[in-house]
């Protein structure tokens, strides 16, 4: 397909790899965090790690919306479905996220909960219109890319007079998560998680623009290069990061100029600002409570807020003791460091959230990377 295939040319990838190898200073190490799960997936799928010289290392970030959703949030959705008899609609990946008592939305569905997978927030309005006698709750998750569609759904429900529709809002914000990582002990006490720069998200940046990253580049002296999701985009972004580090620069650069502008999608930003406001704190799996890192529904639309409508109270629940998702989401550990990886925890039967979505570091490594860990031995 146009605008896809050209950015997957293996020969060009090798040429960029040769440039990176030539320009990376062998006397130093380069660690770059790809914040976004889309990049984690691309890096695993196209073997980008193997194309890089040994002193250039990629650290997976927490930008996988399904992975950072804590158990307590899924529990709320299950409660609404099983105890309150509501129809719960959500995106496909969310269905298999492990919750309390060995449940997930998928298992709650098997117990009789009316839980439905939707492709788009607009589909939920159709479910609500078709079931006027039932409560219909949209478990809305995701970063800045899925928030505008949720805003449109709420405005659509208002326009259509759908009194039975509400949203369990779990939308989170990219910039505050990056700040949180930069402020974490692992990063500040240089050594446990060294980060020399960030590969900035593709689709999130289409919506928010490149300007919100200027703060990190300046305040924390960390280069940010926004990159597209194709392998050549990621390779070029890594090359640009190596150059910034070599030159001692810390700037926001945009590799994904074909879709990202400095100001982003203003129409989408206006909709989000109309319907949502900042939450003072939100729990992320792996990162814990992060101040001002998520959105809630504005009081003007309170009747569409499932938390208020059902009087839901959030209760934090710790992850399974053996699960390393938290450390993996902070970039402290790699999937293969987890004892559950590939044995008890697989994409078919995930124990932790990073194994659920294809964007999760564990699922990506399971699908594409796990055989690379095994040395090839001649027969």
């Amino acid at each position, binding site marked *: 397909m146009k605008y896809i295939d050209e950015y997957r040319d293996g020969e060009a990838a090798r040429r960029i790899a040769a440039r990176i190898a030539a320009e990376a200073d062998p006397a130093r190490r380069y660690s770059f965090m790809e914040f976004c799960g889309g990049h984690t997936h691309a890096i695993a799928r196209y073997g980008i790690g193997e194309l890089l010289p040994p002193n250039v290392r990629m650290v997976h970030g927490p930008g996988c919306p399904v992975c950072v959703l804590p158990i307590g949030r899924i529990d709320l959705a299950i409660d609404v479905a099983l105890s309150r008899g509501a129809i719960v609609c959500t995106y496909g990946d969310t269905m298999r996220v492990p919750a309390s008592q060995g449940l997930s939305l998928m298992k709650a569905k098997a117990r009789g909960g009316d839980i439905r997978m939707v492709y788009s927030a*607009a589909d939920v309005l159709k479910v609500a219109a078709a079931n006027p006698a039932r409560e219909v709750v949209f478990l809305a998750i995701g970063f800045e890319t899925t928030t505008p569609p949720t805003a449109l759904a709420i405005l659509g429900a208002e326009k259509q007079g759908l009194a039975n529709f509400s949203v369990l809002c779990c939308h989170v914000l990219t910039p505050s998560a990056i700040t949180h990582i930069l402020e974490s002990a692992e990063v500040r006490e240089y050594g446990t998680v060294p980060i020399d720069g960030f590969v900035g998200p593709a689709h999130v940046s289409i919506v928010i623009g490149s300007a919100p990253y200027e703060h990190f580049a300046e305040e924390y002296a960390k280069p940010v290069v926004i990159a597209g999701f194709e392998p050549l985009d990621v390779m070029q972004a890594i090359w640009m990061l190596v150059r910034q580090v070599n030159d001692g620069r810390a700037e926001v650069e945009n590799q994904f100029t074909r879709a990202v502008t400095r100001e982003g999608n203003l129409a989408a930003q206006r909709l989000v600002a109309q319907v949502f406001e900042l939450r003072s704190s939100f729990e992320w799996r792996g990162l814990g409570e992060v101040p001002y890192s998520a959105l809630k529904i504005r009081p003007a639309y309170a009747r569409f807020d499932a938390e208020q409508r059902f009087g839901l109270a959030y209760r934090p629940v710790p992850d399974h003791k053996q699960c390393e998702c938290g450390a993996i989401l902070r970039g402290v550990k790699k999937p293969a460091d987890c004892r559950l990886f590939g044995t008890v925890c697989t994409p078919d039967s995930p124990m932790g959230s990073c194994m659920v979505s294809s964007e999760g570091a564990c699922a990506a490594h399971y699908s594409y990377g796990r055989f690379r860990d095994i040395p090839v031995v001649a027969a």
Partner: protein
Amino acid sequence: MVEKLEGDQAVVDLSGVRKPVSLALVPEAQVGDYVIVHVGFAIGLVDPEEAARTLELFAELEAKP
């Protein structure tokens, strides 16, 4: 994007698969434009000139050893 429908709706062609999408977030999109689709919503447009410029950068790497 291959067809504009009623309201904000449109049809996109993904390598021959036609799919309905909403243009509510990119009302300026026209038939023939390439849109970036996320959960059933077009969230942005591909700028053909910038796309060509990025590809030129890749091609230049070949010319300069």
